[in-house]
């Protein structure tokens, strides 16, 4: 994990650190070192491709990729693709958060609903959702509803399962306390079960968004006309390798931003758990 120290480093840090040149000392910082390594790989990449005269169809230089990336954003409409993909991911995700948490609450609070839903979930959860793409295309076509459906399907199961888990793990003492203070069943669900399940639901959200990203990009590669996946596939078909790399970079950055955003939300949600 960047920014976290290994246990070994933490124990010996103060004892062995001798006064050194401040600049060199700064280079040795784990976080700085991580970025230096990235820069080093990029420079080596650039140099090797230039010296060995590699065909850019196989491996373009990082600077060429960067130029391709900028021009795709400025004139190639990559922003539209990015927005389309984001809309599909988060639109579908919002649907599965709403349906998933409601279904999860319903399952966790009723043994009958749980029994009805259990077999379906057992059958559908381990099924790779990507295999549902052909069926969904037959049902929904290849437009917006299909994209939202595939995105929602990806996030649904982790959210349902984690919601059920979170609610089942709620301390029964808290439910007794709420009843004692006069809470109705509805109030107990809203004010006790749901808040106590939030860390667990959010763990499901984390897993779910990851699956949604994979499914949306994959679906776009198969049938999309706009979207990062469609762009990636198209660039590959016409051997525009710089553009392939450029789209991969956008996808990687998207992944980093989503992960960091989740970390941030996680800290907010868990404020009461810390300290």
């Amino acid at each position: 994990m960047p920014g976290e120290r290994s246990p070994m480093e933490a124990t010996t840090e103060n004892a062995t650190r001798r006064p050194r040149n401040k600049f060199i000392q700064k280079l040795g910082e784990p976080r700085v070192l991580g970025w230096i390594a990235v820069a080093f790989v990029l420079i080596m990449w650039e140099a090797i491709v230039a010296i060995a005269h590699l065909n850019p169809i196989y491996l373009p230089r990082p600077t060429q990729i960067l130029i391709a990336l900028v021009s795709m954003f400025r004139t190639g409409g990559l922003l539209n693709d990015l927005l389309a993909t984001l809309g599909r991911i988060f639109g579908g995700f919002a649907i599965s958060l709403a349906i998933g948490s409601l279904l999860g609450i319903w399952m966790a609070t009723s043994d009958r609903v749980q029994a009805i839903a259990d077999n379906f979930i057992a059958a559908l959860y381990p099924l790779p959702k990507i295999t549902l793409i052909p069926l969904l295309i037959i049902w929904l076509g290849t437009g917006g509803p299909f994209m939202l459906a595939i995105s929602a399907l990806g996030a649904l199961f982790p959210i349902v399962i984690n919601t059920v888990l979170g609610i089942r793990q709620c301390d029964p003492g808290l439910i007794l306390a709420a009843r004692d203070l006069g809470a109705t069943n509805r109030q107990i669900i809203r004010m006790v079960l749901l808040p106590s399940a939030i860390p667990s639901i959010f763990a499901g959200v984390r897993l779910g968004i990851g699956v949604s990203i994979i499914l949306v990009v994959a679906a776009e590669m198969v049938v999309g006309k706009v979207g990062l996946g469609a762009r990636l596939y198209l660039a590959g078909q016409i051997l525009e390798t710089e553009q392939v790399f450029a789209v991969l970079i956008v996808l990687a950055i998207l992944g980093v931003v989503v992960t960091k955003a989740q970390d941030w939300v996680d800290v907010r949600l868990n404020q009461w758990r810390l300290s």
Partner: protein
Amino acid sequence: MGEDVAIECDDISLTYSAKSGTPVEALQRVCFRVNPRRVTAIIGPSGCGKSTLLLIIRGLLAPSGGRVRFVDAQSNAAVSAKPRMATVWQGFNLFPWRTVSENVGFGLEVGGISRSERTARARRSLAQVDLAGFENKYPRQLSGGMRQRVGLARALVMEPDILLLDEPFGALDAQTRLVLQEQLAQLVEKSGTTALLVTHSIEEAILLADTVLVMTARPGRIAAEIHVDLPRPRSMATTHASGYSSLFDQIYSLLRDEVVRAMATETESA
């Protein structure tokens, strides 16, 4: 509350089926009366069903037999409206995602009371238990003793006619326990509410209660009713007062046999 409400427990029994399927008799025809504006303590060996009894009285658990009646203390007629009750729990049972103030205001919130009034009443209630200034802390940031004072404030803010205390200091260290016992004794004396205290501490029972009910090992029954007429206000000094040690011995000798019996049953089933 214009009238004084007494609790009458008539032949309360509870039998539940254990995981193995064999029925377990937890409570057997428990009868007693809790007088208004008095503190009644229930003491018994662990597993005798004393906490279960509290849940039944609170209406959070249905007994297999018998009933709980709330009656007018003078006429013995059933009261028209159920008295207000609030419980203080051994495990505190505070909502960890709510601040201290929001915890205390929970009962008011579910009762539809406005935010501003909740905050004001929570602040007053917290001041009563010496926790002014801790309104915006989270339970995790507090010590065990402070958490239980939040639990007490959360019950007191409901202005209960009957305060139910389920081993309120059982999870605390011995010193914190002493101080809180004293504070609770003073609080109860001042407010004059009816209180029903479940405890396994003889000292706590004598210090706080006017009547001590000693329960038997499982299946729980009332073995004896002992009146504590030590003068109030009581404090730790009460433990040196004349009459204290004879009460202690009396309760201990009753309890000792039951604890031995409870231990024997445990060994059998283990």
